[in-house]
């Protein structure tokens, strides 16, 4: 019989462990990681529950490709914006790939976010106590769609231009405040140079910060509240059956105490309450 614990440790392993211990002593990173990753999950958790993580990964991809694209993109409404897009696509090494990842990733993110929302909705996972997880998720959905709107304009070709004109005018069609929202979005009454700069700033600075914040909140709620069981979970079905039984028992109890009911004391068999009379 041999035991691996005997004898001097591999110095690499020793140094690694010492480093981790050093960091953990001061930051509690081990506890934090355990709290974040090694959680109990309900039986029946399946691939469906991975959609949220997928959306987060796609957001990460969008962030990284977006940062790289920003190194070449020029938000110049006098034609420079479209030229820089052409330059990225045709001249920069693998520019077509990075731009393609960002462009298709945008659609993928919308699709995945909607699938994730549909999963949560169909599973009923938004119910108590996970309402705030749902609310932060709703904000993430809005921010994702707004990301799509602002990113679409940056290509600054005719399609991008007029599609965004239409989209912003749909915003502006909202009652009472709509015209103001439209003016604020397009930085004035008409689409122009200021609109492109504004959308660029919103697309690459304002919304990514907001999305990162809300992803943090969303994750905190998920870790704190746990994920919900699938609707066909045996435990959940049993709980629901027990609740149904309790509801029926309560209804019976209530019926018994109602005047005129067969179980109401006044209609009990006469011999049972002769003494009382």
């Amino acid at each position, binding site marked *: 019989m041999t035991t691996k614990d005997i004898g001097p440790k591999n110095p690499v392993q020793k140094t690694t462990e010492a480093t981790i211990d050093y960091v953990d002593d001061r930051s509690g990173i081990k506890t934090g990681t355990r709290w974040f990753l090694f959680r109990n999950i309900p039986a029946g958790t399946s691939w469906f529950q991975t959609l949220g993580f997928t959306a987060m990964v796609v957001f990460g991809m969008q962030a990284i490709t977006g940062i790289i694209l920003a190194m070449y993109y020029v938000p110049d*409404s*006098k*034609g420079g914006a479209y030229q820089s897009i052409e330059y990225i696509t045709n001249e920069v090494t693998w520019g077509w790939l990075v731009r393609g990842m960002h462009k298709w990733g945008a659609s993928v993110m919308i699709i995945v976010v909607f699938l994730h929302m549909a999963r949560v909705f169909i599973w009923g996972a938004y119910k108590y106590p996970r309402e705030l997880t749902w609310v932060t998720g709703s904000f993430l959905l809005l921010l994702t769609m707004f990301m799509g709107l602002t990113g679409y304009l940056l290509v*600054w070709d*005719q399609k991008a*231009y*007029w599609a965004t*004109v*239409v989209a912003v*005018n*749909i915003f*502006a*069609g909202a*009652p*009472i405040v*709509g*015209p*103001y929202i*439209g*003016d*604020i979005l*397009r*930085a*004035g*009454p*008409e*689409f*122009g*140079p*200021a*609109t492109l700069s504004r959308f660029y700033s919103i697309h690459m600075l304002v919304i990514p910060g907001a999305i990162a914040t809300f992803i943090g909140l969303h994750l905190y709620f998920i870790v704190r509240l746990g994920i919900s069981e699938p609707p066909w979970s045996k435990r959940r079905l049993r709980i629901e059956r027990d609740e149904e039984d309790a509801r029926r028992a309560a209804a019976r109890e209530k019926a018994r105490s109602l005047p005129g009911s067969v179980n109401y004391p006044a209609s009990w068999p006469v011999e049972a309450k002769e003494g009382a009379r």
Partner: protein
Amino acid sequence: MAEDDPGKDTNGTQGGPYQGPRAADFTPEPDHSDDPGYVTRTRFLSNAAFAGTGVLAAAILVPVVGFAVTTPLKEEEFRWVDIGPASDYLKNPPPYVNPSPSTRIGEVASLAVSGPSSDADRRIYVVYGLKDPTSRPQPNPGQPAAEFEAQFAKWASSLRADDFDLIAIWNRCAHLGCPVAFSPGSAGYVCPCHGGAYDSRGLVTGGPPPRPLDRVDIKVADQSKKFEPQDIEAGKDRIPVAVAAKSSNPNLRVLVGKPYSIDQQQQSYGLSGPGEPVSGTLSHLYPFQ
């Protein structure tokens, strides 16, 4: 013998009644920890810190939000833009000579709207034509051509200068703001985005637009004469189109100014955004226009 007693505790009590202070003798220090209304030092300092943080946040956020939001909400300023000599727009054959296009279309590339992008394709169509294009006689089915021509000639000779006017139609679709194009075949305007259709005067003939195409104020003025700004404001420099059409004065120029919206009866309203009705129940959704 008491000193010799080893079991004696000199520090202990010796029996007898307790002489020390009693709990009942103390008046307790006032304790406000249970009183929610009492401001302790800690509470005061905490509140002061929160208030200070709020002031700091406001000092940062108020300028930032004002910077980002208020400038786009500023009222636009419009000026009169000279788009060419009146003869370019008024001397052309009146519509009854050639029955197929009922209007004469002039285009200008830019508009007095503040700074549209060069990609915006914002244009105005300057139309010198019949005030009421529907008054033109149409051939009845089966009517002999000669008879209709005689009828048409009679109508054409009855036209007076007052039957024509000069309007400037903005090509921004009243539905969602796409650029409409003049379609000679239908003698009207068609929007490429969602199929809004307008007649030659910009009135809706089909599709989703909630109101006709917006117009731009247009006038004919003699540029050799100088007017005070308040006279221009009052419209004293305007020359009636019927007069200008007959005039041979080379100093007459056509100018376009401020855009405005109209309803289907061609009543004018303040400029509204695309998609906003100017009359009817739904116009109340936009009370600040």
